[in-house]
């Protein structure tokens, strides 16, 4: 039995989520192989080869993979899929776009967003925005799986797998890359940050969000997040959003400022190790999950917190 992990990467390095998927694959048991489908992606393949537990890296290097288009990535996975019992991808925008195409092309069911491996056929996954956990068993000979990164530890380094080149597929011709606007930030990435400072509608405006939270985030070297309400109100761009419809995070410390704690938001952050809530409404649902709650006016409490740290 062997498991194939579809690596998410930027050609030069692996995205952090790939390491969590490698751990999930290791939990299933059997050999773990990693597919790097990229263009001039030797460095990403070399990085995958150094992950502990990986026994082989397949590098499919070609221009069709220059922009990581799902159509080409899925065709590449299918081209190398023979012999694998489990094919796993991160439950990220990339993995979620590629994996179902692979499943359909192989005529297999997909098990999305797993948080636990019971055995090779059986997995736990959240449903209803995390309000219930379903244990599902697959009857298919090959399992296509996406993995919730925060539920599995990142695989360590220390491997020395061989990199094997495989023929890259040709471009599908049905989709093309136009442009990308990736938010540039000096801060750690939300899904990989140890500390997150997150703001909600209580901040009142985008200016206030930045004015109040940025100094605190700077001091803590934290990533900055937001509730869906704050995103919908236009305070910050959508990629700040933490929640069921945004990013799922599990940092060491999550500081929720002016966030009431809608179910949708809690679903995205309740696995954080320590949660702090600062809100002037003592009945806000966020306090029911917070380890430390401070009922206070955030416009006074946050600057005070920043200055005393």
């Amino acid at each position, binding site marked *: 039995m062997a498991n194939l992990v579809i690596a998410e990467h930027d050609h030069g390095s692996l995205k952090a989520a790939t390491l969590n998927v490698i751990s999930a694959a290791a939990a299933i048991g059997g050999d773990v192989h990693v597919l790097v489908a990229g263009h001039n992606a030797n460095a990403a393949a070399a990085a995958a080869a150094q992950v502990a537990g990986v026994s082989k890296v397949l590098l499919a290097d070609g221009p069709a993979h220059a922009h990581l288009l799902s159509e080409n990535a899925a065709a590449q996975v299918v081209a190398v899929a023979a012999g694998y019992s489990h094919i796993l991808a991160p439950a990220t925008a990339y993995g*979620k776009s590629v994996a179902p195409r692979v499943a359909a092309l192989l005529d297999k069911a997909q098990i*999305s967003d797993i948080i636990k491996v019971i055995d090779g056929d059986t997995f736990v996954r959240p449903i209803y925005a995390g309000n219930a956990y379903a244990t599902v*068993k697959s009857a298919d000979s090959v399992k296509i799986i996406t993995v919730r990164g925060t539920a599995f530890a990142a695989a360590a380094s220390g491997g020395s797998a061989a990199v094997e080149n495989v023929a890259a597929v040709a471009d599908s011709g049905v989709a093309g890359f136009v442009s990308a606007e990736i938010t540039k930030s000096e801060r750690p990435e939300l899904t990989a940050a140890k500390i997150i400072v997150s703001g909600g509608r209580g901040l009142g405006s985008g200016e206030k969000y930045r004015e109040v939270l940025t100094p605190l985030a700077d001091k803590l070297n934290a990533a900055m997040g937001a509730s869906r309400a704050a995103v919908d109100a236009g305070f910050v761009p*959508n990629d700040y959003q933490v929640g069921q419809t945004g990013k799922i995070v599990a940092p060491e410390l999550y500081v929720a400022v002016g966030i009431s704690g809608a179910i949708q938001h809690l679903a995205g952050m309740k696995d954080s190790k320590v949660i702090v809530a600062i809100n002037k409404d003592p009945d806000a649902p966020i306090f029911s999950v917070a*380890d430390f709650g401070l009922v206070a006016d955030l416009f006074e409490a946050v600057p005070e917190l920043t200055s005393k740290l």
Partner: protein
Amino acid sequence: MKILVPVKRVVDYNVKVRVKPDNSGVDIANVKMSMNPFCEIAVEEAVRLKEKGVATEIVAVSAGVAQCQETLRNAMAIGADRGILIETDVELQPLAVAKLLKAVVDKEQPKLVVLGKQAIDDDANQTGQMLAALLGWGQATFASKVEVAGDTATVTREVDGGLETVSLKLPAIITTDLRLNEPRYATLPNIMKAKKKQLDNVKPADLGVDVTPRLTTLKVEEPPKRQGGVKVADVAALIDKLKNEAKVI
């Protein structure tokens, strides 16, 4: 050009679901059912494309129990021209739905299929991508902006860390993210009009699709409850807790 919009009937997003005491699933008896919010955004986008003169006809399709026709009527009240119900009592999983939709696409020949990115019940996020693969079409998932010109759709997608724009050769698949649009409310006159619109009923067997589930749900449980902690008196007490008790700063 014709647009196909698949819509799913789900537990209303305002309902807090409860796990059944026997752990066989969640209790959906007597709870409010509505159109999946992402599907609503898909219908709205199709209607806007029709209002811009890009689309000429919008066909809504739903697969599931007989009551899904309410969801189709709702889509028609927003502006879909007609509906197709693929009626079955079998539990439908995404791969089966994608196969049913492929059969409808083969028959209806739309230039564009717009779907919600995921349903808020099973949170699978699979059907649109699976349909695209079965058809050999291009896809743009998590769309936040759609422009159609000639035989090309230019779609801005919400990806991790920002936005990405792709161009798709039509026919193609688009799945909607939250910020694509804000669906309109169906007005009473439009709800009345929708009742008179054409609604066809087919069975999976008519489409030649085997919908047998591949996944079995063994049990459904409440997630572990996170214990709420303490309230602290002031900022100094908070810093003390974080430094000395939690040791996270």
